[in-house]
């Protein structure tokens, strides 16, 4: 018997506008790029809603109606929910409709899709709480399974989440951690009792997310029957196949004309054709399946790049500088009790800002460039660093008036 767990990540950051040296001290609206700009959050969100969220939700809803066995999980970041409410309420309503079927699980994460766990556990916990409150308000649910930003994970996070009352956590099934082991089982984080660890089967997940429309791939074109055969081949050698990917895979990273929606539409019936396959949500998997062994993640692992580490967000001098300056302001910002200032500062914790500053593959023009709305990592850094200076000035001003 092999369980299949589908989980989709839904996230859009608040991109910083082109914020220049002249703006410091004068303009405190950091995220309001004009319509038509590549940095316009409203434009990006409405485009993604139109191309991806709405049509994909429609397919998922049909599948839920057609196959009573079908189940799926989502994690929506707080900042994407906020933007859906403001810019695309119809898309938010369609997510609510999915959740109302009772067969869609929502996961927990940091509201701001941040790297806060790496820098400040207090801020991390605060952002997790904010996220849960948002999920409760919009969906009337209390998430029990956690996924950290970009599947960033190490042992200590598993232990902390157990203490916070979570049943499970998602992580990348990275080769250098698994070695000879299979990602297709539930594991236990080092130093925990009850919490379960679910690992992404990155080969199968990335076949859909990255390779689906690549004509240079030997398996191109990928069809639902072919993919279902690959999944079924694990029967007897694994308990669960975790297919984790960005939701924008459908319609945005892989455009409609690649056939991605047809693929998705046919996938459940092809998977269910094999009688041993069945769908689970993360919570169900954790209840049902045994934890086969303890798995040691001494260092941070993520789902990004070939390195599967955190070097997409941190490690170059601009990223480290920006992060250090950001978190140096944490306690002063939180103490200010200025809600706008706190919210602005927290929006700056979103991991995407650091991803945009990544120089690793910049000249090769690969995925980093594709996903970067700025002309270069340097432009991204300049806007960010200038904004931080303004935040600092606002803090100084508050102190003077008190």
């Amino acid at each position: 018997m092999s369980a299949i767990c589908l989980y989709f990540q839904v996230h859009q950051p608040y991109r910083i506008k082109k914020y220049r040296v002249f703006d410091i001290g004068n303009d405190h609206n950091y995220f309001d790029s004009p319509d038509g700009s590549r940095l316009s959050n409203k434009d990006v969100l409405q485009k993604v809603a139109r191309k991806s969220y709405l049509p994909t939700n429609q397919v998922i809803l049909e599948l839920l109606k057609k196959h009573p066995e079908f189940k799926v999980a989502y994690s929506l970041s707080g900042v994407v929910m906020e933007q859906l409410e403001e810019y695309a309420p119809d898309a938010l309503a369609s997510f609510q409709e999915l959740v109302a079927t009772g067969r869609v699980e929502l996961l927990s994460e940091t509201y701001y899709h941040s790297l806060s766990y790496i820098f400040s556990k207090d801020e991390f916990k605060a952002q997790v709480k904010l996220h849960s409150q948002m999920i409760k308000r919009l969906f009337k649910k209390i998430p029990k399974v956690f996924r950290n930003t970009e599947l960033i994970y190490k042992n200590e996070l598993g232990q902390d989440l157990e203490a916070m009352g979570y049943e499970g956590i998602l992580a990348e099934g990275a080769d250098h951690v698994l070695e000879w082991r299979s990602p297709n089982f539930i594991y236990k984080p080092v130093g925990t009792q009850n919490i379960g660890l679910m690992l992404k089967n990155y080969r199968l997940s990335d076949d859909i997310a990255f390779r689906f429309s690549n004509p240079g791939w030997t398996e191109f074109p990928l069809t639902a029957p072919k993919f279902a055969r690959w999944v079924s081949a694990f029967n007897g050698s694994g308990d669960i196949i975790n297919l984790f990917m960005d939701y924008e895979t459908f319609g945005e990273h892989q455009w409609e004309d690649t056939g991605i929606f047809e693929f998705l539409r046919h996938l459940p019936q092809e998977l269910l054709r094999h009688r041993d396959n069945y769908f689970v949500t993360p919570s169900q998997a954790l209840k049902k399946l045994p934890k086969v062994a303890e798995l040691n993640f001494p260092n941070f692992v993520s789902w990004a790049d070939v390195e599967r580490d955190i070097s997409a967000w941190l490690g170059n001098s601009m990223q480290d500088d920006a992060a250090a300056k950001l978190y140096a302001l944490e306690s002063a910002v939180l103490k200010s009790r200025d809600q706008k200032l706190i919210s602005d500062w927290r929006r700056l914790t979103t991991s995407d800002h650091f991803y945009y500053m990544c120089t690793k593959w910049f000249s090769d023009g690969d995925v980093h460039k594709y996903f970067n709305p700025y002309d270069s990592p340097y432009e991204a850094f300049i806007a960010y660093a200038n904004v931080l200076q303004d935040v600092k000035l606002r803090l100084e001003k508050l102190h003077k008036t008190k």
Partner: protein
Amino acid sequence: MPIKVLMFGWELPPCNSGGLGTACYGLSQALANQNVDITFVLPQRVNVKADFMRLVFADIQGFNWPDFSPYASFKYLPKNFPPEMARDLFSAVNLYAKRAADIAKKYNYDIIHSHDWLCFPAGIVAQQVSSKPLVTHVHATEFDRGGGQGINPMVYAVEKMGMDKSEAIMPVSNFTKNIILKHYQIDSAKINVVHNGINPEEYVNQIDESNPLDALKKAGYKIVLFLGRLTMQKGPDYFLKAAARSLEYYPKTVFLVVGSGDMENQMINLAVQLGISDKVLFAGFLRGQMLNQAFRAADLFVMPSVSEPFGMTALESVATGTPAIISKQSGVSETLGHVLKADFWDVDEMTNQIVSVLNYPSLHKSLKENGKEESKNVSWQAAASKTINVYKKVLGRKKK
């Protein structure tokens, strides 16, 4: 068998007034390195050392370097020349072409390679005399030199004739290729972009024991460098305007202007008008060691060119380890990603970038390290390989 090339140039370093000579030297050296046999022709006998190729001097009379700099504008040319000698740039170009006939008969070669309009007539004459194919190299067009202020129709006519008569055209960038397509009505199949380059090994372990600019740096000043002819094309006025804006946000900066040209007095006056004359240093034209010291001392290099076919100085700066802000209207911006880019007219954006590089050491460090690494790929060896492919294509030889 090595390919034998008869190459017509106008200048070579150290007797050069700008990038044309540097580019001809770098490319020839790399071509020789890749087994190309070069006979390099110069209009007049000068003291140039280049033992990797055969140097031939056309010995035209009245030609007096640097009066006939490829960048000279006609009104500034010396007047009192004997009539049988080159009186102006045009008669020098024509005399050069006349001498090219004898030279073309004397040497043995497979292909003729002419650099810029000054050498196009010489190349065409050699082509007629020898019936060997002509390829032309375009380092700049009249549309760049004019800086948007109109063109000299006679120069344009020579440029167009050279391009029409050549079997392949090598512009130094896509930027220049597009100008050729737009203004010269040339079939794009004939055009092969060959970006300029550097010799990366020349930029290893460059350390100054002492640098004349050390005193400024010790006093805590940042140095922002402009390096180029002071002409409309290079945009020195935009540099000074950005300097004035930047000083409002980062007062402890000196803006160093290296180069000379017909806008020199105008630039000094502009610095005074902008009230920043105490923060602008006009160093004049520098070469060799002093030029390198300027690059190394600078915290930032700015190239605000209005129209820049390539922009060697930006590449040299980045290779030296000095971050650069370069105009989007430049060829070099096609080869470098780890630099900051701005439209030449966007003084605000240039200011934002200048102040940011000075304010944020981590930005400076990233640009410096990544830029230096990236510059290694933009080499003369790469340019030579592309050039040889063009030769082979023209000669009908297939790649092995």
